[in-house]
């Protein structure tokens, strides 16, 4: 089972791996800049992230070599384990920034919600692969996937982590969409709910709005958030066409940017590399995502297709939301930029995801 077949080795998905390596490289480079100071050029953040990248590539390798079809049997086990870790966070997690998201293990701390994203895709692929591509999913068939989302979704919302909850929902929705959610129903729902939400929001009094936002995201200071976005927009915009050059971003070095190495790392990148650099970065993401979707449609079976599509969807949504958020087109919900933002669990989970996609790709010719 874990023996690497020569035929498999020949089918390694090099383009995806190369894109991943490039993005991780961009990430390390930007974190170095975001946390740079002359006295100590290699910040502890940079060093930690580099170590995590190494561990992540090991994870990628492991995720690649076993046969993903084992998930037919063990998909639910993975899911239950991930949910269990979320419960552990509630009971024995460590707090930070007003939320409880981490499990401390000696020098490292894990953020189980990051791994929940993978488990979510795995369990939905396991659950839906029998029907995918056939008739539209009936309401009855939707019940199990919805329940599978609601449990971890609720646990993560309680941490509280609104951003990751939304992301988990979008990922689940994406898998359902690919698996055969009736587009007409989705469009209808979007048409009804979409415009109704802002209208309903307007009806609320300011203190009610404040109550809801503070319920969903208690540690956010609405005013502070506005300030952060303004500074982020200034940073991105002032990069102009060519950028200010590596390590030359002023917004960042004067600490005007909040969380410049996590949520707002894109602002640092765009300030230093300008519109041209941002285009290159977006190009790398586009290539990675589209390549992932091609792997999905060439997969051996439905399980592989849904797995690859769901994992890639995670990357897409994070890129889209994070850049929209840092460029001031979306409320700040605290979603990181894949491969670039600082965060060990996040990087580890992403590289494992890529490993799984490569796993699917490698076995497309195997019976």
């Amino acid at each position: 089972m874990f023996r690497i077949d020569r035929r498999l080795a020949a089918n390694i998905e090099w383009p995806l791996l190369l894109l991943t390596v490039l993005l991780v490289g961009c990430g390390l480079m930007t974190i170095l800049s975001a946390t740079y100071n002359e006295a100590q050029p290699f910040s502890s953040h940079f060093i930690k992230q580099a170590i995590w990248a190494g561990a992540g590539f090991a994870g990628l390798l492991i995720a690649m070599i076993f046969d993903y079809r084992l998930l037919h049997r063990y998909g639910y086990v993975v899911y239950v384990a991930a949910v269990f870790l979320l419960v552990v966070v509630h009971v024995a997690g460590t707090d930070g920034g007003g939320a409880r998201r981490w499990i401390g293990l000696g020098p490292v701390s894990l953020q189980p919600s990051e791994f929940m994203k993978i488990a979510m895709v795995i369990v939905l692929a396991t659950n839906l692969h029998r029907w995918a591509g056939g008739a539209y999913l009936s309401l009855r068939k939707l019940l199990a996937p919805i329940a599978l989302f609601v449990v971890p979704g609720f646990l993560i919302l309680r941490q509280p982590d609104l951003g990751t909850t939304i992301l988990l929902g979008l990922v689940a929705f994406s898998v359902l969409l690919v698996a055969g959610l009736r587009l007409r129903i989705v469009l209808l729902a979007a048409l009804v709910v979409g415009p109704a939400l802002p209208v309903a929001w307007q009806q609320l009094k300011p203190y009610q709005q404040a109550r809801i936002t503070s319920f969903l995201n208690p540690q956010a200071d609405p005013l502070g958030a506005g300030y952060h976005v303004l500074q982020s927009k200034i940073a991105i915009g002032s990069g102009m066409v060519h950028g200010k050059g590596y390590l030359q971003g002023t917004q960042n070095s004067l600490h005007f940017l909040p969380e410049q190495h996590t949520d707002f790392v894109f602002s640092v990148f765009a300030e230093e590399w300008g519109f041209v650099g941002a285009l290159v970065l977006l190009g790398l993401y586009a290539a990675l995502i589209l390549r992932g979707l091609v792997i999905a449609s060439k997969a051996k079976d439905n399980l592989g297709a849904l797995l690859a599509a769901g994992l890639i969807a995670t990357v897409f949504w994070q890129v889209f939301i994070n850049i929209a958020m840092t460029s001031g087109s979306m409320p700040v919900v605290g979603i990181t930029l894949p491969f670039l933002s600082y965060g060990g669990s996040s990087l580890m989970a992403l590289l494992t995801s890529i490993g799984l996609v490569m796993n699917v790709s490698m076995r497309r010719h195997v019976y």
Partner: protein
Amino acid sequence: MFGSHEVPNELRRRLSITSAAVVVALLLLVLRLWALQIVQGEEMSVLSENNRIRMRRMAATRGRIVDRHGKVLVESEASYDAILVPEDARDLEGMVETLAQYLDQSTAETTAILERAAGRPRFQEIVLKRDLAWEEVVAIETHQTELPGVTVNVTPKRYYPEGVSLAHVLGYVGEVTREDLERSKTYRSGDLIGKSGLEQVFDGKLRGVNGGRHVEVDALGRELRVLDKVDATAGQTLVLSVDLDLQRAAEQALGNRVGAVVALDPNNGDVLAMASHPSFDPNLFNGGIRQTDWKELVDHPRKPMTQRAFRGQYPPGSTFKFVVAAAALEEGTINPFTGIHCGGSHRLGRRNFRCWRAGGHGRVNVVQALAQSCDVFFYQVGQKLGIDTIARYARAFGLGAPTGIVLGNEKGGIIPDRQWKLDNMKEPWYPGETLPVAIGQGYVTATPLQMAHAVGGLAVGRRYRPRLVLRTEDVEGTIVETLPAELVSGLDIKASVLDEVRQGLVQVVNSSGGTGRNAAVEGIVVAGKTGTSQVVTLGRKRIKALDMPWQHRDHAWFVAFAPAEAPEVAMAVLLEHADGGGGKVAAPVAGAVLNEYFRLKQLRGPSRYVQN
């Protein structure tokens, strides 16, 4: 077979659509970046080079506190504050020197403020002095160029138009301390928050949500233009159950004497008046209380910062007798016709317990014993009941535990029993200790609020948690939240028993031999009970109050409810170390407050008062 696909066509179709959607979404991002970096790039570069974007907080107007008829108890006024952004001051020490010429504040004080603000985020403003005098505002505005970084900001400040009136209930505000900031993430440095009383308990509702402006400033820190703005949301208004007119009457009746007056509506627990004298002026705390003022308040021998109405614990004296009477009737120890002879004293073992009337009351039944406050009657009854039964009934009336008023640090008084003695003194209960308890002496203590609560329970047969806040409203006057009356418990005592005890209290005020005739109100049947609780044991001597040092004098009590047939107000009056007994000095206070209550009621019409 090589190259064949088992993934259905429909799935692949959906994946193709997804790919197209991804491309569109990423192009939207490119468009957004093009707008920011190419179209607005120049503008953003200018902003980023100067680092001239500041966030100026706009403090939310703190909510008002009004009485049940909408009369203002606390409101917010404009205060002109001197603020500083140290990063804009090129020469901080020089600036502090210059500032001393224009502000009535020493350089040492200013330096201390700056030191306290150390460690704050860059470019965050520091409040140098609140509530500037007009001359100071003008001086800073005209000497702006000498004071780079210093500006004048308008913020709300607290104003208590009634001054010392109700101060213990309302509380006061002050600037957040570093400990407050660490405790709660919702505070920001420089915020004014409630530090005591309702200001503290309802801080979250009163405070509102601060707004702010993102402004572009020049090199001196002066605003050039506002980039965007989030309006502050004013805090909610607290509507109290207190009737300011009745509160004033209570304070006036207390006058300069040390003590407390509590008036409740026994039908729903509404606190109609709660006075405690001496009091303090919460306006002193605006913008930080001066050291000398604080010292004066804390060192004052009569302790003006002490809230006597619900934190002062005193032996309830003879007011406690209605509890013992109810216990004895309910337990069948006596019936309404049981007569006990009072010869002026009662002997237990080798000790002689005296009645307050040296000559004795003769043969009295329970109503007469209450009316004339006969001690011997209650010594005998109490002895038969035993301490544990007395304690059980006292607790049923809400004594021995806090009443649950929203204000913090409420005291619960003491209702002793065997277990309590064992726990607290490591000693068994001696029979001789029951007798003082039966007349509200010995270990028993209660707060004035508890006594008003208990007598209100007697009046209507059930107890409500004292309610201070009726509802909260937003700025437009729309009700945000209504706080319902909370029934604590029924009394679980026979109606006939309660009637008998009430009859006794009616006789206290209305019979010729009653001890509380000074509380009578014309046209209304008042029920009440006097109490005089000893502070020191005098042994055999009977000394006039005025001949004793102040702190050794007795406390004078009066509890009451009215109208006796359909009670709508329950009261307790306590005068600390008074110059006379409860009937002589406390009953007139209750009478004056009740008189005002019924005068106001007639003035306003009955409907204004009914509120659940």
